[in-house]
């Protein structure tokens, strides 16, 4: 599954990157974020678009996995 690293990106880039990744890979994506605000925004976007979301904390980062 395609993994996108959004570390260091300014708002709203993490969600924009998620949107683009999901358009290219409708079955699912993995998005890495480095802060809680991005985690919340990306998670909300994934849920809103009908995906099931799992969140894994790895050190200081989060990996959100969206699956249909």
């Amino acid at each position, binding site marked *: 599954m395609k993994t996108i690293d959004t570390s260091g*990106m300014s708002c709203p880039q993490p969600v924009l990157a998620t949107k683009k990744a999901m358009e290219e890979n409708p079955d699912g994506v993995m998005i890495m974020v480095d802060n809680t*605000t991005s985690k*919340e925004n990306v998670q*909300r976007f994934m849920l*809103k678009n009908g995906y099931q979301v799992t969140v894994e904390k790895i050190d200081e980062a989060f990996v959100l996995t969206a699956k249909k």
Partner: protein
Amino acid sequence: MKNKIAIIVAGSVVGIFSVLLVFFGNPANMGFCIACFIRDIAGGMGLHRAEVVQYVRPEVLGLVLGSFILASKNKEFLSRGGSSPFTRLILSIIVMIGALVFLGCPLRMVLRIAGGDLNAVVGLVGFLSGIYVGILFLNKGFNLKRSYTLTHMEGYLFPFVNLVLFVILLAIPSLLFFSESGPGASKAPIWISLMAGLIVGGLAQKSRLCTVGGARDTILFRDSHLLLGLAMILVFSFLGNLAFGNFNLGFEGQPIAHTDGLWNFLGMSLVGWGSVLLGGCPMRQLILSGEGNTDSVISVIGLLIGAAIAHNFGLASSAAGATLPGQIAVILSIVILLIISWGNSEFLRKAKS
């Protein structure tokens, strides 16, 4: 959902506190105004000498410190920076110029609407137009490159500076400038201003409140989460104005406002466009600056410099309307925003080459 509660509470409190701060002495329809208050701080520090707008507003200091306290408590403080800092400085100068031509930041725009000021509705249309243009460039790959984690000290310094400024305000006021008349002389008691700033700073940090994000995310992602916060500010400040008898519907005679429709529109379009490129409205920049985001610190410094430039060169509007230098500055700023937007949009530049 938990996050909806946070943004509803934050917006409601901002709305209520804005009306209460006016009751306690802040200028009319200006319980909070990030642009005006940073401009007043610029005056208080002597960066400009417009005598009617000089006062180191504790609300701003409180917003930064409140955000710092809550971010630290929630382990969300993260020292980072390095994302095109000078571009951000220029963008913020432009945002401030636009705000001072309109006579308010997006938050004050909402408070003015809640006070019945229809000129601010014209500003709102401009604001949304600017946001729309910003979004066009976001969709063309506009970005200012990534930021990187920095030392803790880099992140702590700005909240520390705000604390020092507050101590100077309290203990050595003779170092600062204070308006004796005009908006700068209209102020709530220092401790009330500070407490309001601290509480709102904490709530805004927790809820991610952002006046630009609301419209931006609704257009981009059909996500009205942040818009809900903005709506709460509008509703509660409107109700508060009704309760205090501050509501006055119309264009003429509005407090600290002018009726130059074109320049209200264009001024706020600069604010909307620039804020989208910056990743957040002026209030959000203050909150992020307390969280350790030094790109936002640079943005706040840009707002401060922009305010000084505006008043040193006669760019800021008055009740009589926009000034000629202000109008020229707005047109020049549109050109600069176009250049910055195009120059940093990956897809546009790739298509060209």
